[in-house]
Structures are given as structure tokens and as C-alpha cells.
């Protein structure tokens, strides 16, 4: 049984979608890193094709929505690349589902079982605490943190600045040795995007 955090909605009920898959590779992450930006900008441009042109309100918001797509895809891919467990040798899948009033993003990557607990604790914080307060707390704490971890700031920015809805699904894809994947879902509603 998968473990669900937040209001996770399974993908697949939109006619318009786009899926990118990144195969497991021996290429160092540094060399793949710049592809995150390329992919993010491509997906943001691609959305423009489906942007409803009859909705005047939406036309005015197009630049802001495109910018939001670029940021969110980039953050989701950066996280997926950073935390992807090579042990499972699974591809990273990034998909966008387009609706008239919203977009749903999904990214799936392998995750080291030893990291699952810590990540789930942080997810619970994201889902139960005030994001604005947590955002400030994480930044204030990071000043004194010599480990220079990013403190989940990308998710907090999605919540605070882009009013995104976030949810996660953890799947065990192999029991022995244990291999798990995590799918992160983000959703932005155009009415909330300014």
C-alpha cells in the first residue's frame, strides 16, 4: 500500500498532458544539472500552446503562470535529481497535466529508504504548520547552520509565493533489497496566480 501525504490526486484525467522521463545514467549530476532549467523553460513554453486564449483574465496572467511553471518544474526536478537513489535505478518522471483553470505537476524519483523517515517528518511539518511562519523559521535557522542544507525551501516557496497545493505518495517498488519511490504532486490554480 502506498503511503499518502496531503490531498494526492492520481494523474490521468486530463486530455492534455506532457511527460518527460530521465533515464538513470552514470553521467555526474553536475553535468545533468543544467538540463533542469532547460526542461523547466521548455515545459513553461509548451503550456502556452494550451493556454485558453478566450479567457481575457488568463491572457493577462499568462506571463505569471509561465513563470510559475518554470520555477515549480525547476524546483521539482532539482529535488528529484538531488535525492534520487541510484540503488533503485529508476527513471525520474516529470509530468504536467493541463486543465482550463489549473495545472498539476508530478515528479517521481527513487528515494533512499534511510531518508524516507526524515523526509516524511518534514512533509508533516509542511502540511500542518503555517507555511509563512515555517518559511521565516527555516531561513533564520539556516544562517547558523554550517551544513548549508537547503531546508526544504523550494517547497515552502511553492506554498507561500505560488499558493501551490502539495501532496506526496511513497511506493515500495521492491521489498528485498528495499527500493522506494516518491511522487510529489504540486497543483497551481490560475485564480491564485498573480
Amino acid at each position, binding site marked *: 500500500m502506498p503511503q499518502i501525504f496531503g490531498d494526492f490526486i492520481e494523474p490521468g484525467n486530463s486530455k492534455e498532458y506532457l511527460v518527460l522521463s530521465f533515464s538513470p545514467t552514470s553521467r555526474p*549530476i*553536475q553535468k545533468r*544539472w*543544467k538540463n*533542469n*532549467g532547460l526542461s523547466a523553460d521548455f515545459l513553461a513554453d509548451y503550456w502556452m500552446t494550451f493556454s485558453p486564449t478566450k479567457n481575457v483574465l488568463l491572457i493577462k496572467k499568462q*506571463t*505569471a503562470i509561465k*513563470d*510559475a511553471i*518554470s*520555477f515549480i518544474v*525547476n*524546483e521539482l526536478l*532539482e529535488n528529484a535529481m*538531488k535525492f534520487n537513489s541510484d540503488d533503485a535505478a529508476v527513471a525520474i518522471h516529470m509530468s504536467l497535466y493541463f486543465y482550463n483553470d489549473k495545472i498539476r505537476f508530478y515528479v517521481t524519483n527513487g528515494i533512499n529508504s534511510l531518508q524516507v523517515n526524515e523526509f516524511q517528518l518534514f512533509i508533516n511539518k509542511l502540511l500542518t504548520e503555517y507555511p*509563512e511562519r515555517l*518559511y*521565516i523559521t527555516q*531561513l*533564520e535557522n*539556516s*544562517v547558523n547552520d554550517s551544513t*548549508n*542544507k*537547503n*531546508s526544504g*525551501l*523550494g517547497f515552502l*516557496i511553492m506554498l*507561500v*509565493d*505560488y499558493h501551490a497545493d502539495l501532496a506526496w505518495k511513497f511506493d515500495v517498488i521492491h521489498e528485498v533489497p528495499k527500493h522506494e519511490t516518491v511522487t510529489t504532486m504540486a497543483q497551481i490554480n490560475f485564480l491564485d496566480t498573480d
Partner: protein
Amino acid sequence: MKIEGQNYIVTYDSSSSTICCEGAFRLRGMAEYSPIMELLDTVANQKPKNVILNLTGLKFMNSSGINVISKFVIKLRRQKSSDLVVLCTSKYPWQIKSLRNLERLMPGLKLEVD
């Protein structure tokens, strides 16, 4: 002072105490941001009376970049030696969304949108 990366340039003009960031900040984690952090630390340690942070030429910044800029702002606030003006643009919507959080980190910070 000047730092030039593949997709960005950061300069500091001490005569006007102006830090100027251009291009895109898409670096990987805090380690790759360390040259920029060092420049910002150097400026903070000089404790200029008025600091201008010009981000109008920065078309993209990832969360690690926002972390770096936020740390600089918090450091200036804690030192209580410098006033800070951040120049941003509505041309890049992320700036209006994300940079207003800096005002919460440093009350008194002036965010000027062109």
C-alpha cells in the same frame, strides 16, 4: 569585485555600495553558491551605511539562490549597520512574488519595483 559564472554575473561597486546580479541563478546547492556568498559576506563585513542590491537583471533564481540572498539580508539586519534597498522588476514575475519576503526578514528594507 566581480564574479562571473556560466549564466550569471555578480558585481560590487564599492563607490556606490551597489551589488548587481544579472543572468540566472540556477546553481546546485549552497556549495556552488559559495563564491557569491563570499562576495555578499565581504560586503556585509565592510558595513556600508547604505547597500543597494540590484536584481533587475536577474531573470531566474532557484530556491538555493533565494536562500543565499535571504542569508545576506538576515546578516545585515543582525549587524544593524546598513540600510538596504533592493531593486527589482515586474518584468520577471518571480521577483515580485519572492522578494517581498525579504521585507519580512528585515523590517525597514526598501523594495523598489521599476
